[in-house]
C-alpha cells in the first residue's frame, strides 16, 4: 500500500491557509486587508501570522503610510513551495475527487 502524504501542519491551519491563499495572488498585503478578508480578529490573526513568520513562509515589514504605521506581509519562496506541496498532498489524498 503506498504511503499517504503528510499535510504540513503550519499550512493546514484554517486561518493560516486562508492567509497563504490570499497572499499567493498579491505581491504584498497589509494586516488590515488580511484581517478583513479572513474575517478574523487582530489577536488571532497576529498569532497566526507569527507562526507563519517563524516557519519562514511569510516575511513581515513595517512602514509608515503617511503618519499611519502599516504592517505588510509578503509570501516567501519557502511559503510558495510549502503551499504547492500542500496542494499536491491534498490532491493525492483526495484522489479522484479533484
Amino acid at each position, binding site marked *: 500500500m503506498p504511503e499517504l502524504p503528510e*499535510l504540513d501542519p503550519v499550512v493546514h491551519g484554517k486561518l493560516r491557509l*486562508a492567509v497563504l491563499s490570499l497572499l499567493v*495572488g*498579491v505581491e504584498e498585503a497589509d494586516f488590515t*486587508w*488580511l484581517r478583513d478578508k479572513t474575517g478574523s480578529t487582530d489577536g488571532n490573526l497576529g498569532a497566526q501570522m507569527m507562526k507563519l513568520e517563524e516557519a519562514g513562509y511569510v516575511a513581515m515589514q513595517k512602514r509608515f503610510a503617511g503618519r499611519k504605521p502599516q504592517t505588510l506581509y509578503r509570501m516567501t519562496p519557502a511559503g510558495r513551495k510549502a503551499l504547492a506541496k500542500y496542494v499536491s498532498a491534498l490532491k493525492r489524498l*483526495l484522489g479522484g*475527487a479533484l
Partner: protein
Amino acid sequence: MADFERQDGTTRDELVQRIALMEKMIAEGRQSTARYGWMFVLWGLTYFAAIAWTVYLPYTEWAWPACIAACSVAFGVVRTRHRAGGTIDNLRRHSLDAVWQVIGGGIILYLIAVIVSGHGKEPDYLAAVLFFNGLANGVSARILRWWPQGVAAAIWWGCGTAMLFFTTRTEELALFVTATFCGMILFGVYAMWLERHAAAGMVQAHA
C-alpha cells in the same frame, strides 16, 4: 482514504472544505485588484464641469485648474477611504498605478501650464488631452489584455485626431464631449458594473 482518517483524524469533508477555502481566498485576492471604475466617472464629470465652465461662466482661464484641483481633492478623499480597508500590491496593479499616475500627472501639468501661460490654443491643447487619455487607456488595455479599454483608447485617439481637422468651436466641443462621455463616463460605468457583477457572483459562489 479510510487509513488517512485513522492516522490524522482529519476527515475527507474537512479536506474538501480546505480546498473550497483556498479557492474562495484566491478569488477574494483577485477581486480586490479591480476597483477602478469610479475613477473614470469622477474624472469624466470633472472634464464636463470644466468644459461647461468655459462655455457658460466667466474667468474661463480658471476653469480647468479649479476643476482639476477640486477633483484631485475628491479623488484623494475617496482613495484614502478605500485604502482604510487595507491595501495590497501586485505587479499588475503597480504597473497600472504607475501608468495613470505618470500620464495623469502629465495631463494636469500640461493643462495648467498651457492655460496659465496663455500660449496654447484651445483646439490644440484639448486634442493633446485626448491623445494623453488615449495613451493611458491604450497602455492599460495592453497590460490588462482587455479589449473594451482598447476601444476607449481608440475613441480618445479618434476624437483627438478629428479635433485637429474640425476647426469650429462647436465641433471641438462636440468631439471633446463625445470622447469624455464614451471614453470615460460610459467606460467607467461599464467597469463599475463589471466590478459589482463580479463581487455578486463571488458571494453567490461561496454562500
